[in-house]
């Protein structure tokens, strides 16, 4: 397949495109791309649970929202807070939430796991709506200050009202997150994860600790969802219960994983991209985004149940079979 130089060239080209993206496509598409990247990281973090460990969560938005709220609250209330520590606080807050929950949730799997998350997700959502004095209720926390990116007082890069600079910051944070998650799936620990999905009992017999492994994956997944939420909050300069904690927010990554293809690392990213592109095109023609998205979802599940990567693999196999048959025929004649 691809050899090492090809891979290097691919990554360098990708990096160049990312660096020059705002210059090439203008501000509108830059913002669109940031939004895509946020949800890609969110979807990949869910896929760590769903695709790699086989745990379906209906409440992943609680980590997303917790990250967002923590960042927003930190920037609003702590004097002299800068951007990176604020994102770090979002990451830590989601991580702590996951740490608190993991002793409860790692005991169960399957439907019970999904339902428990539905419960906690809804609890967080309702709490965010009702504790008005902290979270701002339905309005959420908006217009909090976004300080400049500051490296030890030497360099200062303006963030507020400067989408291009924010694009680079978001790309670095989200890119590093993606790379870390990708790296994790390649480690022996990642293999145990897949093992738990395929046969938890066997992994147990082999002497690995199943609940503890699940807990670690859970915390990592939650923490990265927190980063995504934190960047999302900074990007919109607004964190709200419906926008970051609602049940629909939990379904966004699940559908992205399903559409892109479960169990492959890049599947959820494809899924997010497909949805963004479709939404973008649909919005040009009609306001009925729901209708088109719903129909798309139905059609995708019915005709490509293994998602986009599954579809590509099937086509590839068909093409290889076709090519093999053809080369065989050529040899005969």
């Amino acid at each position, binding site marked *: 397949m691809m050899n090492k130089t090809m891979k290097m060239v691919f990554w360098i080209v990708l990096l160049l495109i990312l660096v020059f993206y705002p210059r090439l496509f203008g501000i509108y598409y830059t913002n669109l791309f940031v939004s895509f990247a946020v949800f890609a990281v969110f979807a990949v973090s869910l896929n760590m649970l769903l695709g790699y460990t086989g745990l*379906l969560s209906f409440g992943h938005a609680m980590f997303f929202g917790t990250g967002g709220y923590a960042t927003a609250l930190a920037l609003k209330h702590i004097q002299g807070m800068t951007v990176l520590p604020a994102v770090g606080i979002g990451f830590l807050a989601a991580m702590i939430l996951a740490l608190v929950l993991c002793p*409860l949730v790692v*005991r*169960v799997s*399957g*439907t*019970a*796991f999904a*339902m*428990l998350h*539905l*419960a*906690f997700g*809804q*609890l967080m959502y*309702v*709490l965010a*709506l*009702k504790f008005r004095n902290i979270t701002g209720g339905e309005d959420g926390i908006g217009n909090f200050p976004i300080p400049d990116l500051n490296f030890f007082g030497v360099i200062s890069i303006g963030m507020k009202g400067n989408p291009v600079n924010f694009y680079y910051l978001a790309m670095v944070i989200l890119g590093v997150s993606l790379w870390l998650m990708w790296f994790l799936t390649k480690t022996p620990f990642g293999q145990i994860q897949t093992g738990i999905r395929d046969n938890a009992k066997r992994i147990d017999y082999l002497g690995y600790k199943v609940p503890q492994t699940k807990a670690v994956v859970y915390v990592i997944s939650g923490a990265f969802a927190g980063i995504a939420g934190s960047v999302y909050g900074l990007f919109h300069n607004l964190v709200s219960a419906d926008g970051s904690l609602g*049940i629909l927010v939990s*379904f966004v990554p*699940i*559908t992205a994983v*399903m559409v892109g293809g*479960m169990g492959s690392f890049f599947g959820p990213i494809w899924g997010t991209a497909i949805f963004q592109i479709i939404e973008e095109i649909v919005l040009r023609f009609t306001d*009925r985004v*729901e*209708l088109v*998205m*719903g*129909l*798309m*979802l*139905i059609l995708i*599940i*019915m005709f490509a*149940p*293994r998602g986009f990567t599954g579809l590509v693999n099937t086509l590839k196999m068909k093409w290889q079979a076709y090519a093999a048959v053809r080369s065989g025929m050529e040899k005969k004649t």
Partner: protein
Amino acid sequence: MDPTTAMYISQGIHGITYGMILFLIASGLNIIFGMMGILNLAHASFFMLSGYFCHQVLVLTGNFWIALIVAPLFTALFGILLERVCLSRISAFGHLGELILTVGVAQVILALVKIFWGTENIPISVPPVFAGMVSIGGLVYPVYRLFVIGMALGVLAFMLLLLYKTRVGKIVRAAVSDRDMVNALGINIPLVFMIIFGVGTWLAGVAGVAIAPILTVFPGLADQVGMDAFIVVVTGGFGSLTGAFIVSIIFGLLSSFGVQFFSQLAPVLIVGFMAVVLIIRPNGLFGVEE
């Protein structure tokens, strides 16, 4: 009767009415899940759709009773259509696909409802027979809510008779415990599935018509009531009608008394109750271990 007692009793009946509605929706969801393993997230959308059908029939005929018969039947028809056209074809690819598909269906129904009937609240008038108030020992209460309770109990009795006294019920109960075996015994499981899905959506439809005069019909209805019904099923335990019944009543009372005493925090009570139950029993109050 002094006002405080009257308040308690009327809030109690309010709660039971809402609990009954929740039970009608939750029982449909529960039967479908218990038997087919499908988590139908479009269930509440069918409930809402039935409310709109009720409105449409009322516009055409002006008779609530016709609406009460016809609207749930149409809803069930759509449910059967969904089962036949979509769900039965993708069952080979696991339950997650079915779940996401029903999310898509819910979105489509929401969009279509907005296209056909707009986004405004549509008031449905209470049928004239039940429009008045009744006085029970000095407590004045709207008759219609009492009728809803009675109707829900009637449907419950009908369902229990169907499940435990008829051959169809026997097949359904057998299929819940071992679907493949029942299939091997020569019973047409796909047909049974279709009927079950139809009955489940019919129940949602009945609930939709029953609640229409109380809450009015609007596109957010599915989210508002559907989430509660879903929480009921989760807390009561999947596949358990008893659990759904008990939890429906508890939730109805929790929400009506919660609004009375804590106003803002009533939803927190419900969700908190669910979280506590699930922490202690991850499969719900009456759920069975997987």
